[in-house]
């Protein structure tokens, strides 16, 4: 019995210390990791969907509170178009799939999107990130439209062999649209501010 007690005690102590250490390291590295992800994952996607932007969406980024979470918004101006880009997540085959979606603020349409994080199977699900023709299907759709794959009665052609990943992307788009709808008043306000700042320099 004594032996049993010692085993339970040692293992419980060990795992709780380990949990504490990990929580500590995580909170120490969190900001730095966020910065790295911004630089290496989001920047290439932002640059490709907002290639024509007249401002720099990376330096102009700002955060908007949506309940408990803060969303990072990448704003862009292309001619008269005011564009806001935000990231949402869906569940893929082997983890979360991150998707950056750019919305035109005046027409309420999606003008572009790109996959940021994906740990999907190389050669199948990974095509969501590598093959631009898949996310290109979302371009130009209105925010009132719910994205879903053809198998589920929707409009989107799933990637062959990767229905789950394709569904994950659809979930991410719908999530992004929902966030956009919720935050629209604040987004418009922030974009007006951005415009006036741009006018002064």
């Amino acid at each position, binding site marked *: 019995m004594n032996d049993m007690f010692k*085993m339970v005690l*040692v293992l419980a102590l060990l*795992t709780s210390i*380990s949990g504490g250490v990990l929580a500590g*390291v995580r909170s120490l590295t969190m900001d730095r*990791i966020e910065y790295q992800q911004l630089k290496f994952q989001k920047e290439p996607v932002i640059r490709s969907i907002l290639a024509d932007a007249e401002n720099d969406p990376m330096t102009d980024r700002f955060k908007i509170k949506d309940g408990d979470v803060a969303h990072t918004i990448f704003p862009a101006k292309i001619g008269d178009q005011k564009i806001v880009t935000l990231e949402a997540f869906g569940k893929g085959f082997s983890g979360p799939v991150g998707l950056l979606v750019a919305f035109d603020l005046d027409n309420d349409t999606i003008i572009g999107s790109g996959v940021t994080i994906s740990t999907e199977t190389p050669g199948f699900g990974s095509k969501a990130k590598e093959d631009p023709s898949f996310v290109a299907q979302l371009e130009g759709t209105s925010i009132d439209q719910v994205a879903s794959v053809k198998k589920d009665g929707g409009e989107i052609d799933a990637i062959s062999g990767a229905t789950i990943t394709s569904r994950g992307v659809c979930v991410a788009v719908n999530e992004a649209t929902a966030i956009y709808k919720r935050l629209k008043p604040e987004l418009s306000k922030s974009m007006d501010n951005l415009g006036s700042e741009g006018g002064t320099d």
Partner: protein
Amino acid sequence: MAKTLTQEFVKGLWEEIPPFKLVLGLCPVLAVTRSVENGIGMGIATTFVLVCSNMLISMLRNIIPQKIRIACFITIIATFVTVVEFLMQAYTYPLYLKLGIFIPLIVVNCIVLGRAEAFACKNDVAHSLADGLGIGLGFTLSLAVLGTFREVLGAGTFLGHSVFGDVFQPFTFMVEAPGAFIGLGILLCLMNIASSK
């Protein structure tokens, strides 16, 4: 304890060099040695885990009950691996993306658990440190050598710099999976010839 600290350290570099002599931890050896940079990065990450877990397990060797030692070792190893994962994400993000799944898989790398079970839980902290450092550097060295072999032949580059110029036709087979097995086999063969003389 007959061996000195130096002997414990040096044995990891040739006599018990992990992938070749102990033939342990082959999964990452085969998978990440596509390039020298990946090999060295993986080697250093594993060395860090190995040294830390060896020391901690050695410190706790009289506290950990015999019956649940494996569970305790895995907890300790997994903690250090997760720390490494956070640190790599924070400071060497591109390398982290390339090594991907193989970083968390250090948890099940049999070298780390092997050293814990065979060495750290029976020896004092200083010797365990020397053992971890030696085996870790030996592992890094092996990955670097195999990575060099594959990258130079398979892509014609070393650490991303071209070696032969434009005339060289890369032997792409070497950076693919079968090339890893053949490369490992050839190196193992050369090492056996060298040590049998």
